[in-house]
């Protein structure tokens, strides 16, 4: 075992982690721990754009952006956070540009912008061009640019270090309200050697990204297993609004690989088997550019009502054939390439089969607008921060608008980085890391390695597959009490089976078998929370649609869900939503 | 990649041949007898074949050298480098066939 001491430790080197690192490494001794090489992070898969009311191509302002974000999030958004997000958006984009990000340009040399779902002019009048973009690889450019800046600043990376535990100075659930709980450090497994490392730090930032792998059909990477969320939960911290998961309308049918909303922003049209532009029925004003939850439901509904295309009538079509090939090549080169490579479909001439795919976790580790992690509705954990998809500030509420996440990781990644470094400067000594800090991780590793000799009976892949299929079947675009109870039962059963999983690789070095087993543990816990939250929320709001409760119920459910892991399962609590300017209204587009 | 190997191998082959070639030609300074004796051995069929190989190497290396230069200079050539590889082989064949026909005629024809 090796021990390290830093002022700030950042877990995750995606957009949020590296944006934080750029700030904190200027101010404090910072280490970035990441289970992947930084450039492999899933931020690099983001395609369409990053929202900011730059008004480079048409009239726009940050206030409209706030409104769209709140409305898009079905009023579950904390409006103070949304205001920060949208007002700081402009600098966030300009900062990236100054770091060298190669945005697409307008003829007069400014950052170009395009339309995206749910982003409107003057409170919903018409779609507005707000997404700053770089072809359909905006996330790739952000990730590369941030990594390049990290190289310039000589940020210290620990690549392929899996953080598996968070150490606090006391149990946050046992601590009385108002009592101080502080972070002490994290425990990580180094992939190349199998060695366990402890990191003691004054500040720790979690930026571990999403948890899309709880579903089978997802746009998310194999490595997005919700580790950060799971670790927080295990450490006695709550997760907020986990029942809200975004299903992106246009995943490649059967595969889940994403085709950016930019395809529709650039003029693509969704059609059913009859060739009908069905979104005209669901969102007469902005049609195909309605927010994702609505479009995904509309698509699923078309399929349910028998208007799906294909041999099994189980997908709809994204039609780009009326666009100029040159325009497609310039604005959407990658996603059209995906259609060619993976489905053998030529988007110039044929419509592309698409179906909703699990995409984004609106919920996560609850934080303040400075990125401080909450341990209940009001108290923060000293020195602990979270940012990016693993966090929930709540700027996305019940449904995230496209392009608001790349914005989120930059705005709140930056804020968390600054706050963490400033906090580290105010404390002399980090909290004590107990001698047995690594005991839990060692226990898990030793137990799993022991299964190699044949003590376990279950295969990791089987349990994971069963979990993902259950989640896809029961907790997807449409949910109801029956499906959710079924999911709850299956997840509980799988948690039992998980206790018997066995691995094959007995080595210490690059034991990815072992890590997949650990990741599965996180997936199971997160699924449990998602299902519990979804069952309790007897209304439909944003990405969460209950067929047995098809309308929004502001009387009973205008609040965030706070979920805690306890001895006897998930305990749910609520947290009020911060409303400043915009009172909930019906959501029509 | 394979043209790179060909270029390298032929380059080295020519280089070593050249060393030997200059040395043997130097024998003209020693005496006509010595020179003619060595050159005489070049006139055996075996050496005739080696000689043919050398010419082949030079032509291949030379034409491929032109291809490399073209590729470095023009985007068109760069994008059509595969076709240019064919062009090298064709040019090579066009020159080699008549040469071989004549050369091997001399070598084996005993003239």
């Amino acid at each position, binding site marked *: 075992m090796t021990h390290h001491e830093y002022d700030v430790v950042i877990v995750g080197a995606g957009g949020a982690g590296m944006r934080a690192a750029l700030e904190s490494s200027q101010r404090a001794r910072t280490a970035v721990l990441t289970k992947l090489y930084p450039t492999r992070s899933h931020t690099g898969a983001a395609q369409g754009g990053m929202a900011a009311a730059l008004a480079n191509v048409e009239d726009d302002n940050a206030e409209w952006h706030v409104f769209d974000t709140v409305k898009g999030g079905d009023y579950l958004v904390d409006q103070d956070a949304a205001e920060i997000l949208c007002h700081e958006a402009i600098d966030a984009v300009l900062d990236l540009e100054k770091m060298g990000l190669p945005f697409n340009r307008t003829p007069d040399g400014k950052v170009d912008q395009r339309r995206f779902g749910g982003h409107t002019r003057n409170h919903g009048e018409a779609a507005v061009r707000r997404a700053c973009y770089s072809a359909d690889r905006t996330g790739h450019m952000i990730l590369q640019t941030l990594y390049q800046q990290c190289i310039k600043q000589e940020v210290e990376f620990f690549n392929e270090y899996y953080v598996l535990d968070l150490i606090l100075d006391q149990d946050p659930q046992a601590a009385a309200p108002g009592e101080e709980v502080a972070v002490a450090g994290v425990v990580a497994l180094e992939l190349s050697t199998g060695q366990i490392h402890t990191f003691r730090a004054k500040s720790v930032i979690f930026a571990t990204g999403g948890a899309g792998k709880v579903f089978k059909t997802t746009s998310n990477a194999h490595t997005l297993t919700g580790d950060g969320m799971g670790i927080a939960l295990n450490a006695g911290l709550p997760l907020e609004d986990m029942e809200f998961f975004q299903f992106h309308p246009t995943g490649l049918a059967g595969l889940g690989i994403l085709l950016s909303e930019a395809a529709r922003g650039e003029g693509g049209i969704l059609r059913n088997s009859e060739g009908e532009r069905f979104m005209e029925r669901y969102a007469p004003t902005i049609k195909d550019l309605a927010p994702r939850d609505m479009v995904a439901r509309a698509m699923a509904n078309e399929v349910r009502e028998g208007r799906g295309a294909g041999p099994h009538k189980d997908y709809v079509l994204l039609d780009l054939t009326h666009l100029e090939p040159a325009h497609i090549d310039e604005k959407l080169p990658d996603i059209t390439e995906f259609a060619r490579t993976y489905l053998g479909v030529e988007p110039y001439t044929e419509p592309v089969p698409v179906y909703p795919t699990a995409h984004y976790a609106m919920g996560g580790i609850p934080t303040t607008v400075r990125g401080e992690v909450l341990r209940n509705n009001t108290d923060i954990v000293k020195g602990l921060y979270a940012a990016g998809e693993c966090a929930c500030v709540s700027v996305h509420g019940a449904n995230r608008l496209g392009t608001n996440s790349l914005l989120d990781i930059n705005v709140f990644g930056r804020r968390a980085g600054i706050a963490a470094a400033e906090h580290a400067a105010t404390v002399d000594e980090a909290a004590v890391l107990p001698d047995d800090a690594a005991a839990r991780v060692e226990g898990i590793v030793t137990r799993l390695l022991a299964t190699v000799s044949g003590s376990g009976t279950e295969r990791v892949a089987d349990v994971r597959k069963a979990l993902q299929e259950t989640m896809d079947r029961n907790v997807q675009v449409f949910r109801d009490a029956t499906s959710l109870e079924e999911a709850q039962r299956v997840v509980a059963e799988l948690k039992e089976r998980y206790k018997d999983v066995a691995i094959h690789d007995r080595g210490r070095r690059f034991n990815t078998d072992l890590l997949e087993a650990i990741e599965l543990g996180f997936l199971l816990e997160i699924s449990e929370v998602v299902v519990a939250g979804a069952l309790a929320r007897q209304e439909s709001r944003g990405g969460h649609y209950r067929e047995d409760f098809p309308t929004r119920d502001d009387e009973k459910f205008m609040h965030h869900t706070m979920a805690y892991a306890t001895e006897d399962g998930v305990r749910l609590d609520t947290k009020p939503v911060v409303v400043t300017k915009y009172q909930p209204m019906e959501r029509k587009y | 990649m394979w043209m790179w190997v060909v270029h390298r191998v032929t380059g080295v082959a020519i280089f070593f041949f050249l060393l030997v070639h200059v040395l043997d030609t130097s024998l003209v300074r020693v005496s006509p007898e010595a020179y003619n004796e060595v050159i005489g051995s070049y006139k055996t069929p075996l050496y005739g074949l080696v000689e043919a190989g050398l010419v082949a190497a030079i032509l291949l290396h030379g034409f491929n050298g032109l291809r490399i230069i073209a590729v470095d200079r023009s985007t068109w050539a760069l994008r059509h480098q595969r076709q240019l590889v064919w062009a090298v082989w064709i040019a090579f064949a066009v020159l080699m066939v008549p040469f071989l026909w004549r*050369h091997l005629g001399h070598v084996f024809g005993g003239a």
Partner: protein
Amino acid sequence: MMTAQPSVRPPRTPSGRTRRNAEKWSWVFMRITGPVLLILIVTHLFINLMTGDGISQIDFAFVAGKWASPLWQVWDLLMLVLALLHGGNGMRLLINDYAHHPWLRKVLHSALGIAVIGIIVLGALVIFSFDPCPVDADPSLLPSFCEDVR
């Protein structure tokens, strides 16, 4: 234990920048000499192997006959020098690619240098100090014009 590598672990030996553009000029040189050599050598080969009786005509007399003309003297000298420099530089590149030990590299480089210079000097001497009609030689081996000289 493997630690993270924040700073650049030098994967290569810097050249020391004593000859800043050396590799660039070497590259340009190869591209200039190549085509020139192509013309020189193809003509050379054509004359020696294709015209007249081909390879069987080559003997002392043939060579002497050619070198009597200053054109062929210069031609062959140019060919000799360029080919050796081009080939020698090519060999140097190869050594750089394959010889990884500094000492081995040094040895090979020196050997190459000596060979190239030696051969150029030797060749040049031969071409210019060449006497087409050595006095003590068997006249039947000499080019026909030697009879006039005698």
